[in-house]
Structure formats: C-alpha cells, structure tokens
C-alpha cells in the first residue's frame, strides 16, 4: 500500500500547485448553477411579462361586432387593424393571431344563431400560441357571458347547460412546477463529476509522457497497478471537491436566491438531500476517473488527451438531457446503467420523493463493478510496452 500512498501524495501536491487548472476546474463547477440561475431569471421574467402584458390583437371587421369589441377592450386587449391578408401574415409570423369577424356576424347574432368568428393562428409556432390561446379564451368568455344572459332572459338558469362541472385539481407542489429547471441539475452534476478530475488524470498520464517523465517513473520498482491506482486516487479529491462546489452553488441558487420573485414560488433543497446526492455521485467519480485514465494511456500529448476527454461528459449527459424533458420511471433496469441510474436518483432526491433503497444499492453496485472493470483495463494498458510511446 505504501507505494500507492507515495504516488497519491506526490500527484496531489503536484496538481494542487497547478493553480490555473485547479481554478478553471472549480470554475467549471459553477457553470451549471449559473446557467440554471440565468434561466430562472430570464424565463421567469418572460413568463411574467407575457401574462400581464395587454394582448395586442389584430382584428378584421370590428365594425360588425361593436359589443364584442367593447368586451375585448375591457379585458386588456389592444385592438389593431388586421393586415390585408391575415392568413399570410400569420403564416409569415408578422403577427401571432388575427381575429376575423364576418359581415353577417350581426345578423346571426341578433337572430340568436351561433355567430361565426375566425381566430387565425399557427400551432407550429409555440411562442405565438400563448396569444392565440388568450384570444380564444376571451372570445369564449364573451360567448358564455352572452349565452348565460340569453338563458336568463328566457327564465332558465344558465347552470342548466353545464351538465358536468369539471374542477381541475393540480397536485403539483410549487416545487414540482419548477421541475423543468431542477431536472437539469443531475446533468450538470454529472458534468462536474467528469470535469473535476480530468485535468489530474490527463496530467499524470498523457502529461507525464509528454514531459518525458513517464519512462523514468516506469523504471522505478513499483508495480504498474499500484501506479494506476495511486494516480486514479489522486484525481478523486479534485472531482469530489468539484461536485461539492457545484452542489453548494445549486443550494445557494435554490435556497438563498429569491427565485419567488421570478417564478412565483420558492424552491428548496435541504442539507440531507445534498449529502445523499453527493454520496450517490461517488461511484460515478470513480467511473469517470477510470474512463479518462484509459483514454490518457493511448494519447500522446496533454492536448490530444484533453480533446478526447472533453467529449466524455456528453455520453452520460445524453440520457440526462432526455430525462430533463421526458420523465422516465425509475426501474431496476435503469439503475443498472451507470450514470443513468444516478441521474434518476438525484432527480428523485431534489423532488423530495422517497428513494427506493434497492435502487440505490443496484445503481451503486453496477457503477462500481463497471468502474472496477475499467480500472483493470487501464492497468492492462499501463502494463503494455506501448505505454512508453502512446498509440500510433
């Protein structure tokens, strides 16, 4: 065990002295929380503005329905004249929505027949759909109001036409409504895991070869597996600290930053959840180190290794991105996939959901077994003659 400790201590001190790469690594850890904060502020403000802003509604044939026009104006709509070709204007995206009132609106209306209007919108344009929906709602409200009045005039209670009363019960807590943001957290944590130790792993293998210090080191009387383990272990404190910095920044964003001002609700992640998330990340830290070690054994220079290693976090990030928009149920099968299971577990922890202990065990064991296999491969690669030269 002693030689492992010697290698570990040396690499730790050596890499801590590499201030620039330490600072840039820890800076990367703040990227995720920073992006989430930005999204909360930007999207939150956009959302708020959109609902409070008066609805600008191009209208054609306003003269045929003065009462409807009056109702719309009373309900925060600013009516403007519709462009000459409403359909084309909407299709081109010049306007979000156009309300068209036909000439015979008044006639049908007076006769008590359903009076037709057209709301022209483009459902493929998500950003425009909010205004289309607002216009639809206003017209529907007007229609219901008039209908109710007509029934009353005939001595019939308006409730008679409501055969079924639908009451929508929203079970989402304030936190669950902001999940879109929280769902991205596991992804950013995996990034932190993969970036944290990368510089150390590359420096201690590809960097060592590039500096020409690998050959003398390999001549020292130390078994290769001890060398690999010592170097791998030296990277772990760096990735762990990176994960902690990331987690700490997320905690600040959710618990201290006044998110309520932007999203209308406050999020919170408690200390217990943070510690659990950290523990769940630990097996991934080992996995990332082993993967990077393998890459670093056959690349010739620091730069070459870096260009490969930088792609690594994208592999586990893919399922994480899917998870952000398409929640998948946690199953044992999912837990068997390293990094995927962890991202689900982290997601559950932030939501404050109960985590199935069996899932934690399966995911941890699966990831540790995969890491062990990768470490063995790394040791094999380190034991080859080619380690001196790097792959051609």
């Amino acid at each position: 065990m002693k030689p492992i400790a010697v290698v570990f201590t040396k690499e730790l001190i050596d890499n801590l002295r590499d201030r620039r790469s330490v600072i840039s690594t820890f800076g990367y850890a703040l990227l995720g929380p920073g992006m989430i904060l930005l999204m909360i502020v930007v999207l939150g403000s956009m959302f708020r503005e959109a609902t409070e802003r008066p609805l600008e509604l191009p209208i054609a044939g306003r003269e045929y329905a003065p009462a409807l026009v009056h109702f719309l104006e009373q309900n925060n709509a600013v009516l403007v004249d519709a462009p000459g070709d409403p359909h084309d204007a909407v299709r081109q995206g010049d306007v979000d929505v156009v309300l068209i009132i036909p000439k015979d609106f008044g006639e049908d209306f007076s006769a008590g027949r359903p009076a037709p209007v057209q709301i022209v919108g483009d459902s493929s344009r998500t950003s425009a759909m909010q205004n289309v929906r607002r216009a639809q709602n206003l017209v529907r409200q007007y229609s219901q109001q008039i209908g109710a009045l007509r029934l009353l005039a005939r001595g019939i209670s308006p409730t008679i036409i409501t055969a079924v009363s639908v009451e929508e019960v929203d079970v989402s807590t304030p936190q669950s409504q902001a999940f879109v943001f929280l769902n991205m957290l596991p992804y950013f944590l995996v990034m932190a895991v993969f970036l944290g130790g990368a510089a150390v792993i590359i420096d201690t293998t590809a960097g060592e070869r590039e500096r020409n210090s690998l050959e003398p080191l390999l001549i020292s009387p130390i078994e290769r597996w001890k060398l690999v383990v010592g170097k791998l272990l030296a990277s772990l404190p760096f990735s762990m600290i990176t994960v902690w910095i990331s987690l700490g920044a997320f905690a600040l964003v959710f618990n201290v930053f006044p998110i309520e001002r932007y999203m209308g609700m406050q999020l919170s992640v408690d200390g217990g959840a943070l510690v659990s998330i950290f523990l769940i990340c630990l097996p991934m830290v080992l996995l990332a180190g082993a993967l990077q070690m393998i890459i670093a054994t056959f690349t010739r220079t620091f730069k070459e290794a870096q260009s490969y290693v930088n792609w690594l976090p994208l592999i586990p990030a893919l399922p994480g991105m899917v998870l952000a928009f398409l929640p998948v149920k946690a199953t044992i099968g999912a837990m068997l996939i390293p990094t995927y299971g962890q991202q689900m577990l982290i997601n559950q922890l932030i939501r404050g959901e109960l985590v199935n202990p069996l899932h934690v065990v399966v995911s941890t064991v699966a990831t540790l077994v995969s890491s062990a296999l990768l470490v063995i491969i790394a040791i094999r690669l380190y034991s080859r003659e080619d380690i001196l030269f790097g792959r051609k």
Partner: protein
Amino acid sequence: MITVHNLHKAFGDVHALRGVSFDAPDGLITGLLGPNGAGKTTTLRVLYTLLTPDEGEATVDGFNVLTRPLEVQRRIGALPDARGIYPRLTARENIRYYGRLHGLENAVLETRIDALIRLLDMQEIADRRTDGFSTGERLKVAIARAMVHDPPNVLLDEPTNGLDVMSTRAVRDVIRRLRDEGKSVLFSSHIMQEVAALCDHIVIIAKGRVVGAGSPAELRRTTGKEDLEDAFVSVIGTEEGLER
C-alpha cells in the same frame, strides 16, 4: 553486474536488435558505442524491464529482467533517453519522490538526498521549482533521482547529450566516481571521443548487432589503428551517425 545475451527485438518490420550480447562487470565503465538508431536505447530499455525482448535474455546481478523485474529495478539506477522531471516540484522534491518509490524514508532518505545534492554541486538550486532549470541543471536532478537508492548498477543513455563543456565534465567526473565505488556503469553514446575518454570496456553496436568489443587497447590491436576513433570507424565501417 549486467549480462546481455543474444537479444532480439522488432517493432513491426523494424528489427531494432538482431542478437546483442555483452557483459558490463562491476567496477568498470562499459560504453555502448554506436550510431543513432543502432539499438542502444532499445538495449537499455530491455535492461530497464520496459521492453520485452523477442528472443535472448538479460540479467542484472543475476536477476532476469523478464521474470524478476522489480528486483532488477531495485538494483539499477537509470538515466533514460526520456529524462523529464516535474516542473512544479523543487529539485529536492523530485529526488525525494524517487527515494520514496524505492522505499526509502525519513532520515535515511534526507541524508542521502543531501549527499547527492553536495556531490552534484546543486545546493543553490535544490529548493527551487525545476520549471526554468537549464538543461544541465535538469540533468543533475535526473542523475540525483536515479542514484537516490545507491544502486549497484548504473545505466546512462547518452548522458551528456545537449550539455555544455562544464556540465559534460562534471557528468564524466560523476561517472568515474560511480565506477570507483565499485558499481557496474553502462553508458551509451554516439560520441567517439567521450567513449574513448571514459570507458574501460567498449561494446560497439551497429544495426542491432555487436560488431566489436574489448578494452581500448584490445580494439586498437585488433583493428591495427593507432587512433581509437579510427578504430571505431573501421569496426562500424562508416562514420555516419557518429560524432568525433
């Protein structure tokens, strides 16, 4: 004591070694002379246990490099072709790391490091980070680190490469001193004058084969050349890849 017997090694189609044999006895400086690409570094790498020969065997103090690599590594101090040191560590820390890898600790290790620093006259640079060291200063660190465990066998691959006159002289002094301590010193060079000035025993390699061996006097006698450097050239058959 180093013995090499009938080493063969190929990298793909390139036959680096085609049957290299020689001995490097204790208390002598054995020079491996040959043009660039003759197989000197490959031979030494087999002795460091970093390369596995396709054929033949090599031993250090009786330990086979293939079957007892750790025993061999404990008994050699090597200055390989690649002699990079860690720029973020001080000279002393660089040496200490290798001492620890050899299992030395505390007072024994520190005493040894101090002795090497005095021997190589590097007191002034010992506690500076090696980033920015000159070639000569870096070489001193590399030599000190190779000698930290006081190895009975010393292998030096082109030790004076890129050095100025003063440093070259200092390195030669160190090599002689190591020999006088009774160690087996094996060093490779393509510089004829250096081999002529230092070696008790010379092994000449070309194209992966030993083409001549013996003491300087024996080489002069067998080739019939008065000048040792002329003797080398006549054995190898060409001056290409050599330096006067």
